[in-house]
């Protein structure tokens, strides 16, 4: 996409709603903003219909602010809470049928490479735990086996949250939910380890309470997918509605799970990805010195 797409035809500037004028003047396109700049630019997502205190909404806000080049990024989503929010985002995004997201993203990435051979188009899959670890696991893992240059981000709220609270593969063992009254019978799926073994070059888990780490891992994951191979980021996004805590406790809940070790924070980086990311760091240091 050309950045010209964010320039209005002068004939119509006077009739364009203010929010579009603000997006052009104060939006993040082409400016390299990040999480630390939040509050100083017009964000690509500002309103959403998700529940008050939704950890997933917070995670998405931070992920979108962390994308290295939003104007060259296409997000593929899937059914779930996040799919209620994505239509509001001022970013190219495609909704896929439940579970198909990594298959759709594969086709999209390949098409983009053919259509724009001289440009890097980042295709980022953002879906919930149900779409990623349960219903779409086949498509997700096959894309990793094929080493598709995609970033897969799971927003893990540990439940099927917008259908009343069924257990997902990512719910913790024995957890009782609205639609799982006798408690979950098997452990949480260790998807980061599955991703590592399935061929992902960069894998990280993070919680929605840790904005700096989200920025770091999302950027590393997207850049790794662009140059090295598939990447996977899993973001713990607590759900106040189904896990029955107050909406203002969402961040504290995420921090507590991180602290007590019931949501482990891991990072697996392949040798190729490590050498690529270290090269980037060196380049950045060199650029800073000069």
């Amino acid at each position, binding site marked *: 996409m*050309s950045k*010209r*797409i*964010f*320039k*209005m*035809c*002068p*004939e*119509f500037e006077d*009739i*364009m*709603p203010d929010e*579009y004028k603000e997006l052009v003047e104060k939006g993040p396109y082409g400016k390299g903003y990040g999480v630390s700049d939040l509050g100083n630019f017009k964000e690509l997502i500002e*309103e*959403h*219909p998700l529940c008050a205190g939704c950890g997933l909404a917070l995670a998405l806000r931070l992920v979108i602010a962390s994308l290295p080049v939003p104007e060259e990024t296409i997000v593929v989503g899937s059914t779930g809470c996040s799919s209620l929010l994505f*239509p*509001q*985002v*001022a970013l190219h995004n495609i909704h896929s049928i439940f579970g198909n997201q990594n298959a759709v993203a594969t086709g999209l990435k390949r098409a983009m490479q053919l259509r724009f051979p001289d440009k890097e188009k980042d295709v980022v899959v953002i879906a919930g735990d149900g779409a990623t670890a349960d219903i779409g696991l086949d498509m997700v893992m096959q894309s990793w086996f094929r080493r598709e240059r995609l970033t897969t981000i799971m927003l893990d709220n540990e439940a099927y949250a917008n259908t009343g609270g069924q257990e997902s593969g990512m719910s913790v063992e024995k957890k009782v939910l609205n639609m799982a009254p006798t408690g979950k019978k098997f452990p949480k799926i260790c998807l980061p380890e599955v991703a590592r073994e399935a061929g992902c070059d960069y894998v990280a888990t993070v919680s929605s309470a840790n904005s700096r780490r989200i920025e770091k891992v999302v950027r590393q994951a997207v850049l790794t997918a662009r140059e090295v191979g598939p990447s996977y980021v899993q973001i713990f996004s607590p759900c106040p509605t189904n896990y029955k805590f107050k909406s203002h406790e969402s961040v504290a809940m995420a921090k507590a799970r991180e602290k007590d070790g019931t949501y482990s924070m891991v990072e697996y980086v392949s040798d190729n990805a490590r050498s690529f990311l270290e090269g980037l760091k060196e380049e950045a240091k060199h650029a800073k010195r000069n």
Partner: protein
Amino acid sequence: MSTLKYKVAAGPEGYLPPAAASCGIVLPEKGEALIEGAIVPEEEAMLEIVKKLQNASNPVFFPGPLLLWDWKEGVREKAKEVKEFADLMDARIIPMPDYRPKYPMINPEIEINPNHPNLTIWHNQIDVCVFIGVHCHYANVALKIVRGGTDCYTIALCAEMGHEDAMISLRDVGLQKIKALKEIAVKLKKGGQG
């Protein structure tokens, strides 16, 4: 299926109107256009477009993203011509800047959205509207909703093959066709027949 020719007339046709294509309406070849589902020479359709706009009590142009954003060579020139054409027709312009189904809802006074275009038409009491610069798949959605829920007369000035669900559909609309429409409008205003 009825053998009677389906007429793509102004609505309201009711919730979920049939797609005109499913009722036997086909898109015209080059040099042709559609008026209420019937294939006619494009000159005839262009004259009818100007007449409809001229006789409307509240005509409105809905330029879409392909025309509002200066995204490639030639767009700005086309935008200028469309603006002049709308001014010539004393038509208001309400933009469709993108296709997001916004939350909680759009402001129908100043914008139109393809997912609920009826809100803008109802709010502004628009009797004739022109869709231009809207990607075809969203134009199809919007035109069908407008026909289903409003009595607004729809005109599609399409850069591609046109739209069965518009009451008048002109295809291959580029700079020259907009200029030609302007010329017809000037002639009609002076009392000629176009």
